[in-house]
């Protein structure tokens, strides 16, 4: 598995550069031009990223996130999501590094091939950090009004949580 996946990234980089050379593109100059534009993007990104990181770390350090997890536990049960995985579903839309920590904790505590470990793995593989994506993508081009993005994205997340539990039940033939 390892041997194969480590090839992906370097192959893509070399492929793009080689393809460009064969097509007669001045790859070095072109790369620098594109990278320079990237600098502008990052500078534009900082304010919205700062706003998000601030709110998320306040939620984490104040203990509010833990309260939220506890408050939402009954909801998880009703939806068929294992209780052990609940913290992951709360943190996954708002913090990428946070959900990675919670994920590792679940693997450590309940075992990687347990039901909770598997459902958590499927959730990690099928969702992204929603609020991070919204903030970064819209923030980078200065969009203020996101209209119906948040409800649609959160509905997609919720679907993935419910489906993850359901799919693990189906593929591994277990009852949760």
């Amino acid at each position: 598995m390892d041997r194969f996946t480590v090839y992906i990234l370097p192959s893509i980089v070399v492929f793009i550069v080689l393809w460009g050379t064969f097509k007669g593109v001045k790859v070095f100059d072109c790369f620098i031009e594109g990278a320079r534009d990237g600098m502008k993007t990052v500078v534009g990104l900082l304010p919205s990223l700062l706003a998000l990181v601030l709110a998320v770390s306040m939620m984490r350090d104040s203990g509010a996130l833990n309260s939220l997890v506890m408050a939402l536990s009954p909801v998880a049960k009703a939806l068929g999501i294992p209780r052990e995985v609940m913290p992951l579903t709360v943190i996954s839309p708002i913090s990428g590094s946070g959900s990675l920590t919670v994920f590792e904790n679940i693997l450590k505590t309940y075992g990687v091939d347990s039901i909770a470990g598997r459902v958590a793995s499927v959730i990690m593989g099928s969702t992204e950090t929603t609020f991070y994506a919204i903030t970064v993508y819209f923030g980078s081009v200065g969009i203020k009004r996101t209209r119906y993005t948040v409800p649609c994205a959160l509905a997609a997340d919720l679907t993935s949580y419910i489906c993850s539990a359901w799919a693990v039940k189906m593929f591994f033939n277990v009852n949760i």
Partner: protein
Amino acid sequence: MMNYIWVGLMVFAFIAAAFQGNMQQLSNSVIQGGVDAVQLCITLMGSICLWGGLMRIAQQSGLTTVISRLLSPLLKIAFPGMDLSSHEAGAISMNITANLLGLGNAATPLGLEAMKHLQAHNPDTMTATNEMITFVVLNSAALHLIPSTVALLRQQFGAENPLDIMPASWLSSAAALTVGITLTKIFKRRVER
């Protein structure tokens, strides 16, 4: 929407800290938050510049057009009426490819590239277009064919077969994607009426 969520998170954090006696931690968190954001930006800067450069080569050599043609069935469903040879279609295709391969670090910079092109012909630069919303929803329910980060962690924790969760993961992201895209289409129709 983001305005209310942001204020809500902070007020909730303050109240929770007051009740649970965590005000000192919250105070540290406010100071540390700014530092963390700048660090995150510096980390991102490397990958954004790297992929911005590679993206430019891919555009000029026509590679992005080839990839958008390969992904055209998906693009036609999600973004009806989009010109497949346009810069935005190219960048969106590259972003989807990076997601499919599980290259999270590449997907974000490529996605930002796509947003830039979408914004270039947005009549109201403060408001998200329907295409932008679809694109962001697509990214929040990312379809990974190879969930590399998860597989790596599963291996480290001694899974019998680290990749055995893949079919379940495909099913679950396909469902999330379907629900997300369908909802954006419903909202779009309602707005237009």
